[in-house]
């Protein structure tokens, strides 16, 4: 017997929630309990009074399951609003990475040259290492990290995706 897999597409959701204890567990747990997929999840307080957080979730699902994910999120009591940015249309997605590279001589110079091409900033330097800060879409960061492997990659920290709709309206 074979277990069938469904066609999936990638969606980016913006979820506005009450900033209360357990909210992240509530959301992440709902995804696991119902067998949904989380590719990336970021969360932080976005209000002046520490009361509201914005969660950006990247998930892959069939269109049918996608509709369920949004409905199930909206059903959670502390959730204010769920926006499917992918369906909404034009939006900007960005990620930040801190990339540590160690090496000497030609590797060190090549790392700096590549960083310049990718508009990565040096945020820490020693005689034998750099830490670069790079922002952009996930593909750009993937590519930058890939290149850094050639010149002495030591460690990577990535934020995961944050996203916002283009234009003057709030999502």
């Amino acid at each position: 017997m074979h277990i069938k897999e469904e066609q999936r597409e990638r969606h980016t959701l913006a979820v506005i929630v009450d900033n209360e204890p357990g909210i992240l567990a509530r959301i992440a747990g709902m995804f696991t309990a119902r067998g949904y997929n989380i590719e990336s999840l970021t969360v932080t307080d976005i209000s002046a009074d520490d009361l509201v957080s914005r969660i950006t979730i990247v998930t892959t699902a069939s269109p049918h399951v996608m509709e369920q994910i949004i409905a199930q999120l909206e059903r959670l009591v502390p959730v204010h609003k769920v926006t499917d940015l992918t369906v909404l249309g034009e939006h900007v997605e960005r990620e930040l990475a801190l990339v540590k590279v160690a090496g000497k001589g030609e590797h060190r110079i090549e790392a700096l040259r590549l960083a310049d091409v990718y508009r990565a900033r040096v945020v820490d330097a020693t005689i034998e290492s750099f830490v670069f800060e790079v922002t952009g879409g996930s593909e750009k960061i993937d590519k930058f990290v890939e290149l850094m492997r050639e010149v002495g990659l030591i460690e990577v920290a990535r934020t995961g995706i944050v996203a916002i709709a283009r234009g003057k309206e709030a999502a």
Partner: protein
Amino acid sequence: MTQKSGADILVEALCDLGVDVVFGYPGGAVLPIYDALFQHPRIRHILVRHEQAATHAAEGYARATGKPGVVLVTSGPGATNAVTGITDALMDSIPMVVITGQVPTTLIGTDAFQEADTVGITRHCTKHNYLVKNPDQLGNVVHEAFHIATSGRPGPVVVDIPKDVQVASAKYARPGPIRHKTYRPALKADKAQIETVIDMLAEAERPILYTGGGVINAGPAASQILRDLARITGAPVTSTLMGLGAFPASSDQWLGMLGMHGTYEANMAMNKADLILCLGARFDDRVTGRLDAFSPESKKIHIDIDRSSVNKNVRVDLAVIADVGHALEDMVRIWKSRQLARPDLGEWWRRIEGWRQTRCLDFPETADAIMPQRAIRALWEATKGKAPIVSTEVGQHQMWAAQHFGFEAPNKWLTSGGLGTMGYGLPAAIGAQLGNPGALVIDIAGEASIQMNIQEMATAAQYRLPVKVFILNNEYMGMVRQWQELTYSSRYSESYSNSLPDFVKLAEAYGWKGIRIEAPGELDDGIAAMLAHDGPVMVDCRVAKLANCFPMIPSGAAHTEMLLQANEVSGTMDDEAKALV
């Protein structure tokens, strides 16, 4: 404003919320609350014998009265024992508030004695839950918990209260109407949508009303309006297990329950309909059978208060997010204001009559053994004049009760539908009896299920609750055995109920009356003796051991592939079918 202890605030808030019965069990982490309840003039505490039973009793109370059930248990094992009933209430949309004690805030996270992460454990089996760390917030949280449990799609809410919060002093003032920041369930449907529903209903040639537990949850008025809608449209009505009683079984328009053990006519009508109007049901897998063969020719309308129930299993053509009671009211009003005539459904009813001729609920009778279906019918005949409240456990007896007991009114049928929890019936009957002291309350049970919460016989005895437990004793976990016959060539792996107690002696040991019925000739007298006794009675009704529950749609089969009788059963299945539940 004077300061009160957290425990006093809780009890005062419960009084303000109109609570008069609490089902619970004391323990270290709730002692301050139990002290505040000591000889309380208003709130009656019912001491159960196991916390799971407290939750089922609260469910039975809620289902039979329409009011939320309230549970009070201690930390750790008290809370974990309650989890099954909490999950049951979530699956069946039962309003319930569960107060759990917790170790003091200073000890949380230290693996303290009787500490469990109650909010963590119950996060995904509650509609919402709270850990109250600040006594100033306790009153508001309790009021909010009741608001969430009872509004929208009802469900269980857990309020976890550390012991130091119960002891600490704070102020309490009864809050006004709750305006929650985020939680605002829609009640009224969009008028244009209801107009479209009426257009579709008026045009349909083969409509069917598919109703569920949502109609019961919408209150008795919704059941009344459902009857109006059925009358003016002339459409046939079927219901899920949870919705039985919303529409009277004595009506000509009633097709019986649908789904896996539903009637042939209900399932065939669903399959051949050109319009399904789903009212407060959720297209559960037990109802739909094989999804790609589910009602292929119909337009589908789904009216439900929970948007996540819509388009979950079955794609519908029109979704209306609203309280089903309000939606029914609007539908009947608009139908009448348009002065629509009752549609001519003569051809549709002729087809339905044809399906009815299969007489799918008929069963073979023998002279030497009581057929379980006969026992249910005899029980119904003997009690139908008394408007009984019937609870069940889970298994064959539950399905036979759903098939053969005719329900005429809402809030009379208490059963564990979604979760299928054995051990539900006796505590649910106790809860229902407390909410309806004068009513006849019967738990139709199996000999296996009843043992899962049999300790509650003591609770019924203590509070002099005259509940009746009617056990269909076939010495098997009958539904398991039936599936083993269907799927595993009758290899009865662990499904025999070995070492059964003598239920009559057991009843007597608990101070109940015990009655044994062994032969068809004893059935009516035994039931009469049960009804004549004014205290609790346990009836051990010995039934045919190998009877199976038909009709049946095997897992993964379509509505049109019903098995009507046992001789249609092959005894083996392929892996795809074996993997289905």
